[in-house]
């Protein structure tokens, strides 16, 4: 089970912002630079960090960071 703090660390690396702290309610609109390009990179970083894999179908369903967190934890 990973925490929102651990997930925030991945966001910090991908978005080059050491102070970035996400909450479960965050969407792509709340993080500067989170667009379709960086989204791919973010998911790859999460897969690498936590040793999981996303499929295309679930990727489209992610609306919030909370959705992402729940999906990660369901795979651990």
């Amino acid at each position: 089970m990973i925490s929102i703090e651990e997930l925030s660390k991945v966001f910090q690396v991908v978005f080059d912002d050491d102070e970035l702290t996400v909450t479960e309610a965050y969407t792509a609109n709340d993080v500067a630079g989170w667009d379709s390009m960086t989204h791919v990179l973010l998911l790859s970083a999460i897969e690498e960090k936590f040793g999981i894999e996303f499929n295309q179908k679930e990727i489209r369903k992610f609306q919030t960071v909370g959705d992402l967190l729940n999906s990660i934890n369901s795979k651990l």
Partner: protein
Amino acid sequence: MISILKLDALPLFNIGHYCTGFQVDRGLGSKVAVKFLDHQLNTAELTYRDLDLRSNQVANLLRKSGFNIGDTAFIYLPKCLEFYEIFLGILKSGLIAGTLFSNFGSEALFDRLYDSKARIVFTKKKMAAKIMRLIDQLPYLKMIVLLDGDDSLEGCQVDYQSLIQNLPVDFSPQTFAHDSAILQYTSGSTGKPKGVLHVHKALASISSSFDEVHQPLDEDTYWCTADPAWVTGISYGIIAPLARGLTQIQYGGVFDPLTWFGIIEKENIDLLYTAPTVLRMMMQYEDETYSGFDLSQLKRIYSVGEPLNPEIYKWGVRVLKHEIYDTWFQTETGAIQIANRPPLKIKPGSMGVPLSQTEAAILDENYQNLAPNTIGKLTLKAGWDSMFVGYLNRPEIYQEKFKRDYYLSGDLASMDEDGYVWFKGRDDDVINTSGHLVSPFEVESCLLEMDEIADVGVIGAPDPLLWEKVVTYVKLKPELTLSSALALKIKIYVSNRVSPLATPAEIIAVDKIPKNRSGKVMRRYLRSIYNGTDPGDLSTMEEE
């Protein structure tokens, strides 16, 4: 309707004034100029009078702060309502306005701010942190204006709202038509990004092309989805609709097809100007996704950035019940030069026909005209009003872009008997990904700074979504192998330092990067390996 501006009759001429005060003077003061929707679809508006007064305050701020005509001011912001008043205010002040993508990495920022000797940057606090890391290397930068400034301002940072709120709302621009106005950086196949400079009279081409291609009516509502850091976002997302006195919509959220079509329907968009990559992303959804939207108000859809595949055109007709008009221009041309537009019949896959004021020619290696349907260099007869006037600090490269009084676009194309132009590729190594040009040299330079990489070669390769993707060949330092973790590290390194757009989609480890005898990466050879095609003449390749 204003079509062609009579610049000779206007010794003093300023784009910012034409887009605001001039519109107020002709009775549009209370008309909404920009309606901005944030990501939650909350709206905020500026009338032409609001935009005039607020941009005057920005101009007063710049002049009062000691900046002079010809100094460079950058906007480093995501899409927001203030973008418009700041951009136009910079132009009114006589400073040169530059724009930076909000997702630029530190190296991309440094290259542009340093090369331009930027004096002032308008940004937000979070984004300013990237500039503050570079501040010691930017001796000309004197002021960072924060739109969300608070009590914790550092160094040269100042707060936007508190600075402009009491400044006068009158300002008289003192620029001439030939004065520098806009600076936009573009990537070439060699060297750092080049600053493309345009002057105030560029407005004449921007306005006339907008009238000829988009054919707006006074009451039309217009939406250009391009980022204002891109040439399309400036020429057709700020200047053209304001100079035409239209109401335009801008949306600050990320791409989502349902949201976008909801906006088109609810805001009664008449004219939509977007990009093939966006249209290809829309195509990935089921056709039924769009069946519930009433698009009866939408008159025309236009596209720009990279070639519009015939498949997208057919999808538009089938699913959206609209033809999609492809258009072509570059940062250097400043305004559309070739386009599909009514009443011309669209030939799917063609970028259209040169505009009435454009003289396009397809030239061979010796710069002689080629027969119809023959592939050659796409060139434009020099001298149109929005033609760039120089690459900042690079006069020799500027001269190389002209032969026989023709501007060399760098695109390869053919022209058929009816005058339709067909894109065939690039005659240099520049990568066009999602309509944005990426310099392979810039990515290679960045990656050579990584401890793990001994040598690198970067090429563009065909991609069904992006048009082209960035492919990176790497020679790793001894004892290292390309693990998934290292591949990810390489991607994040490029994304953070150059731009997410420049991020390699594919990384391939090799023992040796092919070079010619003068040590230049042979990208042609790498492309042939990747695409499985004939590499051609390899006589100049460096031997083992």
